[in-house]
């Protein structure tokens, strides 16, 4: 009897622990939605209808859900790209550039190795995407580890270099010779396209993203490596005195983070675009940084936050169809949600 009630209490307790942050999150979301509604009213639109449109178009049908998952995929990966280095207080704002370099490396394989069997080709593309993004980030990691340049600054600057590099290639040497001189590479062969879930655009990249989330969570929580990361994150000086090679951890966390962003780039270019072009990403790297921040770098939270932002951005074009609002208006909704969360979680570094 006593045992049973204890069990029930602890269950209640667990429920309560889960409910409290959820309730808080719901409250914040409500405030954000109310603020955005005020903006819409100010511009003479009906906010209730706008919300109904956003939610019904993204969550009200199987198709809507599938498109939300499509949007979530790169967001989860770029969020992890910021989250992993953040465990030792590294600030990686370079997800965007790492995504572009990952896509670039994967594209090289797709163009040059197109005779390979699909499975092998996709594996190489994913590996190159990961490696490309990872090494790109590791440059910033190296500059930081050597004490030359802060990784915040270098990752930010290297975003531009990466995007310009992709531009240089698609405007020049990699331009599709049969594509009316348009700045894009040739279309990938069928073997270089990630498999998709029957009839939708949900692709294997989503599995990459979820597996990466679980692996990161496991690595950080359950391995010796994760223990040392936590030690550095807790007190870098003490960790150094205990003989943990901090420089190596700086390089490795940046490599992993950048690699995940690179993987996002590979998945986008292979499954969604089917060729490399300059309009590869509408700022996934930056959104990912924000998601990681919202979730405090926690893997499960990242998936949840990516879901919220995916609903908002995927629902954006509906507002144009039904309310004649510019599509980028959803950026306001996204910003309002973020501002409310930011203002609420005061004092977090």
């Amino acid at each position, binding site marked *: 009897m006593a045992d049973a009630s204890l069990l029930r209490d602890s269950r209640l307790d667990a429920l309560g622990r889960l409910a409290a942050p959820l309730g808080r999150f719901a409250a914040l979301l409500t405030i954000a939605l109310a603020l955005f509604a005020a*903006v819409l009213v100010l*511009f003479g639109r009906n906010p209730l209808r706008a919300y109904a449109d956003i939610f019904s178009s993204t969550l009200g049908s199987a198709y809507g859900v599938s498109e939300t998952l499509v949007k979530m995929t790169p967001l989860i990966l770029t969020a992890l790209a910021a989250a992993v280095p953040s465990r030792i207080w590294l*600030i990686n*704002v370079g997800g965007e550039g790492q995504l572009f370099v990952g896509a670039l490396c994967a594209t090289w394989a797709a163009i040059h190795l197109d005779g390979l069997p699909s499975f092998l080709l996709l594996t190489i593309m994913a590996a190159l995407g990961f490696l490309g993004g990872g090494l790109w980030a590791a440059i910033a990691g190296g*500059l930081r580890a050597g*004490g*030359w*340049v*802060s990784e*915040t*600054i*270098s990752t*930010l*600057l*290297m975003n*531009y*270099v990466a995007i*310009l*590099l992709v*531009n*240089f290639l698609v*405007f*020049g040497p990699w331009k599709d010779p049969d594509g009316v001189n348009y700045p894009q590479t040739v279309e990938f062969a069928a073997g270089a396209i990630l498999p998709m879930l029957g009839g939708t655009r949900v692709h294997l990249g989503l599995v990459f993203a979820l597996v990466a989330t679980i692996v990161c969570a496991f690595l950080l929580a359950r391995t010796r490596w994760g223990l040392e990361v936590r030690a550095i994150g807790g007190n870098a000086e003490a960790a150094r005195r205990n003989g943990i090679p901090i420089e190596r951890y700086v390089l490795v966390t940046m490599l992993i983070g950048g690699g995940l962003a690179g993987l996002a780039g590979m998945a986008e270019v292979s499954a969604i675009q089917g060729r490399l072009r300059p309009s590869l990403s509408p700022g996934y790297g*930056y959104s990912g*940084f*924000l998601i990681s*921040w*919202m979730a405090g770098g926690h893997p499960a939270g990242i998936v949840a936050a990516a879901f919220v932002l995916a609903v908002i951005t995927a629902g954006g074009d509906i507002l144009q169809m039904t309310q004649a*609002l*510019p*599509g*980028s*208006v*959803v*950026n*306001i*909704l*996204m*910003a*309002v949600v*973020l*501002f409310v969360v*930011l*203002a*609420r*979680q*005061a*004092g*977090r*570094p």
Partner: protein
Amino acid sequence: MAPLIRSLLSGSIVSGTPLLYATLAELLSERAGVVNLGLEGVMLVGAVVGFIATVHTGSATAGLVAAGLAGGLFNLVFAFVVVSRRANQLAAGLTLMFCGVGLSALMGARYVGSQIVGLPELRVPLLADLPILGPALFVHDALVYAAVPVAAGAWWVLFRTRWGLSVRAVGENPVAAFAAGKDPRMVHYQVLFLAGVLGGVAGAHLSLAVARTWAEWMTAGRGFIAVALVIFSRWHPLRALAGALLFGGAISLQLQMQALGVPLSPFLLDMLPYVLSLAVLAVWGGRARHAVPASLGRVFQGTQ
């Protein structure tokens, strides 16, 4: 040769001017210890409000004032989140950018394709008649002429006034500044408002003087370039002048070279400023570290 030099010089100056105002905005904030990645959004809000005000009043000067005010007020949203709510600056800045993109698109949707009388070009008497240099340097709008004085003024304010001293003190060590009787939060609010004004003016220069149109996301990344430029100039207003001219020059040079038929990849050339900034930091590593405001990225959290 003479037309080329004239054109290159004039093009660099015109392309560099919005960059300079934006850079000074970022530089002031960072000197006070606040990184603002949202400058792009501030510029867009300035550009669109300036344009709308000009459409309605018929006066670009009124538009400019409105743009500065709008930029300042918009940046106060960022100030509130970062200073009063002590939120993460990078995240808040990116959020501000997204907000500015959306807000400017919403406000400006009805004004795409509207016609305005832009900021007038002023000829400096006599000087404008000098060969080569005259037309390149002395036939511009008022914001171009104001650029050098504003940069010098920023230097003077930062390094020669009491207020500038407190800005730098807050940027270096807010706790000590607080102990010395300054309120770091008040200073942050003042600096961020001023930075917003400069950012708004930077945007308005694009929409009112350079292009004389409004288009969605017309800043095309210049707000981010400004963040890079602050690093390039190692947090010094006068070096920012050189940096803005160099970045503006890179844009202008590649367009010039094309018009002359010189083969040169615009993308590799565009890359140069960023690589240079990185190199500057890496090479001058030791010295650059001294130039970085010590408390950059953190705001005063009270004296608990």
